[in-house]
């Protein structure tokens, strides 16, 4: 399928250097990014990545929360994440990587020096594959907030990191999902680097049900790219 990619909209995508996030000024290029002609290299992409990347934490329905004496500490949530393209067409078979900190705000990572306890029953990473409707489900616990160890840092609101490939090389999406009603959302330098309020809102999951044993959150990821119709460049 031929895919068309349009330039990023500066209102709905972050632009690079953010005053509230000191590291961005050390890492984002100082020179303007170059617009390049797109061809087969950019408009093709890896197929069948699920064969190359081992799935972890469950296939189409992952579980990071565990049960019984292996249950992770925290509030049980079920994330229902749907992966679509710009036409609204689902992406079955696409690989989704998820990672988040534990309920106390601590990651299972040697670089996390935050003085918060490790939960022996929580390993916060799963690699999943989307089902026929582009849906990925993950049973987990709600992550905690934690302070950013950067100069002039701040407390990050609870969030879930998400990585997905889409149809072509340029549709790669790495983002974060937030929870509704969190006061820290208002001051987060990463969420608020997105200028358009609607675009920020779309990064916040929707509480679909709290009448179940797990709070159910629904979320949608839209990867770049739409079907190129005949005659359009």
């Amino acid at each position, binding site marked *: 399928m031929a895919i068309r990619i349009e330039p*990023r909209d500066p209102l*709905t*995508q*972050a*632009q*690079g250097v*953010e005053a509230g*996030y000191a590291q*961005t*000024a*050390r*890492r984002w*290029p*100082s*020179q303007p*990014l*170059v*617009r*390049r*002609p*797109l061809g*087969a*290299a*950019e408009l*093709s*992409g*890896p197929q069948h*990545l699920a064969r*190359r*990347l081992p799935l972890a934490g469950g296939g189409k329905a992952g579980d990071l929360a565990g049960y019984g004496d292996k249950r992770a500490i925290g509030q049980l949530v079920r994330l229902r994440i749907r992966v*679509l*393209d*710009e*036409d*609204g067409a689902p992406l079955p078979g696409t690989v989704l990587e998820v*990672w988040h*900190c534990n309920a106390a705000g601590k*990651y299972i*990572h*040697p670089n*996390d020096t935050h003085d918060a306890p490790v939960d022996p029953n929580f390993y916060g*990473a799963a690699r999943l594959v989307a089902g026929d409707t582009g849906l990925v489900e993950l049973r987990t616990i709600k992550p905690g907030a934690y302070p950013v160890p950067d100069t002039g840092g701040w407390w990050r609101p609870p969030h879930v*990191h998400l*990585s997905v490939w889409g149809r072509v*090389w*340029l549709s*790669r*999406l*790495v*983002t*974060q999902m937030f929870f509704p009603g969190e006061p820290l959302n208002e001051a987060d330098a*990463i969420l608020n*680097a997105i200028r358009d309020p609607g*675009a920020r809102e*779309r*990064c916040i999951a929707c509480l679909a049900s709290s009448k179940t044993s797990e709070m159910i959150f629904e979320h*949608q990821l*839209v*990867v*770049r790219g739409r079907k190129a119709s005949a005659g359009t460049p």
Partner: protein
Amino acid sequence: MSRLIPTAEMTLGPFFPREFAQGANDLAQGASGEVIEITGRVTELDGKALDNVILEIWQADSAGRFDNPAFSGWGRAATDAQGNYRFRTIRPGAAPGRAPHVNFLILYSGLMRQLQTVMFFEDADDPVLKVVPQSARARLIAQRVNQTSYRFDIRLRGGEETPFFDD
């Protein structure tokens, strides 16, 4: 047809799981072609090396094809504490209208969205290389270390900054 707006990209953060970062930097296994190694160092402003930067590559097979079912063309490596990464792959062939190249995507804490750049093997007549300012083009051409090894350093910001693309 109504169009959905792509989700906002956000930084990878500093805690990308090690198990995801590792194990995908060898594209050569089982593939036909000339096996090469690509290594390099990723630095920020002032030349400071960066740890756990995620680099993903996308390239053609040895015949210049991007859709060879027998060759994935995709790989991922992470930098170590000294900022060094390493891929083992096949030297890509020339795709129609292009010089042989390897597409790089960079994800890291403090990068609010992905950065894209391209490694070339030599200065060539290539439509992507041509849109880069002349003075910066040499920074997209890998240094040949030996017969089978190339070095491609990536400087995110500062002197000798690597050119990056926006699409």
